[in-house]
């Protein structure tokens, strides 16, 4: 089953607005928000009837003050600076810095350190006007977003199978580290939303290299294409050289914010952006259906 993930090298390039627009045009898809650190897609999809589940991953260490004799072994061994002296003969662990590596637990000579499963957030399956929606929220400062992303994708696949859906459409995680790697491994197509700014093309390059590294076909959607015509032309040339099809070009337009303020997706809001996005979506579907790999260095 095709799994399309929308990424953007750069934050603010319009990744979520584009994903929501695609969601509105999809016919029989499971929708998914993999941007678990700062999820926004729900704002436009208005999920209801959410079935929630706590997300438990990893562990947290805590010192039992009654058993600790203040030897300091834990503080000396912790590589994350999570352990500090509470007073002369007692140590404490700052949960915000604990990675749950278990080193202190194993090395404490008095077995004074407890190690308990950690709840890091919540995941949910909901209904929306465009189909079922799998989403989550990671607790602030929590780790393990990569694992949460992997869990959401599993849920989306199971749901698609169960309900006979033929596509998974996901708003991908930002950046180039663990969460985004989790969102792309094994997907069918990454749509990279970018904008013609110095940071837009720089970050596009980094995320595209990452996709290449994982042998994931990519396509590019150029947003705010008229902000800087020279930079836009450079991005298009670079994409052509790398064999990355451009699926669409959108102008810089206040409609994006206006539609968002009205809690509408762009196809619902209408106007020139809706038309350009319809064309982009048709191109994306064609590419996602094509057998991979589709690299064609002319």
């Amino acid at each position: 089953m095709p799994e399309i993930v929308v990424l953007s090298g750069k934050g603010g390039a319009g990744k979520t607005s584009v994903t929501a627009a695609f969601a509105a045009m999809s016919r029989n898809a499971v929708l998914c928000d993999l941007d678990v650190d700062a999820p926004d897609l729900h704002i436009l999809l208005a999920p209801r009837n959410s079935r929630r589940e706590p997300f438990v991953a990893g562990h947290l260490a805590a010192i039992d003050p009654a058993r600790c004799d203040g030897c300091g072994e834990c503080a000396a061994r912790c590589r994350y600076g999570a352990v500090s002296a509470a007073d002369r003969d007692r140590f404490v662990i700052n949960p915000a810095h604990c990675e749950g590596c278990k080193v202190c637990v194993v090395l404490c000579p008095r077995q004074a350190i407890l190690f308990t499963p950690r709840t890091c957030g919540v995941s949910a399956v909901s209904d929306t006007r465009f189909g079922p929606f799998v989403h989550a929220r990671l607790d602030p400062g929590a780790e393990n977003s990569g694992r949460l992303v992997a869990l959401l994708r599993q849920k989306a696949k199971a749901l698609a199978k169960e309900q006979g859906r033929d596509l998974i459409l996901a708003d991908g995680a930002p950046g180039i580290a663990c969460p985004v790697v989790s969102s792309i491994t094994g997907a069918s197509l990454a749509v990279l939303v970018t904008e013609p700014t110095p940071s837009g093309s720089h970050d596009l390059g980094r995320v595209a290299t990452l996709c290449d590294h994982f042998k994931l076909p990519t396509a590019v959607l150029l947003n705010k294409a008229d902000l800087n015509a020279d930079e836009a032309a450079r991005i298009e040339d670079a994409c052509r050289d790398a064999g990355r099809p451009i699926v669409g070009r959108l102008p810089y337009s206040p409609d994006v914010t206006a539609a968002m303020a009205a809690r509408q997706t762009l196809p619902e809001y209408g106007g020139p952006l809706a038309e350009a996005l319809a064309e982009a979506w048709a191109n994306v579907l064609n590419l996602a259906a094509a057998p991979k790999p589709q690299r064609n260095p002319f």
Partner: protein
Amino acid sequence: MVITRAGKKGLRLAIASGKGGTGKTTVTAALASIWSQALCRPVLAVDCDVEEPNLHLFLRPVIRRAETAKLEVPMVAEAALCADCGACRELCQFGAVTVMAGKPLVFPEMCHGCGGCLAVCPTGALVAGSRELGRIEEGATETAGYLAGRLRIGEAQSPPLIRAVLARLARIAEPAADVLIDAPPGVSCPAVTTVSGADAVLLVAEPTPFGIHDFELAVEAFTPLGKPMAVAINRSGPGTPELLALCRGHNLPVLAEIANDRVVAETYARGGLLHEAGAHYRAACFALARSLAELPQTAREAAHA
């Protein structure tokens, strides 16, 4: 008036946002360029957004020194030494070491560098090796020092590199210099790791429904760190009153309001800086720098009021 701060420690300010694209880097770059002129103090700009470091695109620093940052990970020294005790595998919480057919097997990419397996291995079958996290670059612009981390593509963890950048910062920053840190976007571990290393936080927020939602996540994430915090509103528009009301509710001073102006977007698209977009943007940047310099004190007074 010349502000002298003999013997005083400089301000360490993190510039953060609930998510990318709010203008965090735009604001950091502009502040770094005008800071020393506005405040007569040396300043160092640090890019901790190591997954997508962009500050250099706007500041164009001259790089004087670059080094590879590494994480200590285990390496099999001599498989024949392994006693097949399984202690390494039992300890590792990240599935980065296992034992197969009586021999240890390390997956260096999955290792978090906790050092646990090395500490418990009784035979010396495992020894310390390393994995490349990325690069740390040091340099300067005409007006500011520059330090940045750049995550290697394919590296899955950014917090170790961020910690390495902050450790480097502790070694190189003159004590009196102010430090402006461009934090990673979001509110997860990398952002919190960065903000923990600062003494005050500037949140850059955008008054759209997405922006306001992410702003609230950021306030929720950073408030427990107990640092003085203020807000700059970028691309101000119809949603601004709602955002201002939220700031009032959280007792957060709003130190700047930048208009949603195509001129600013075009300046940015050319690689230009915010204070170059026009005289009143320049004035706003100077005013922002001055109020940020006072932020720790303003926050102390507010707390005692």
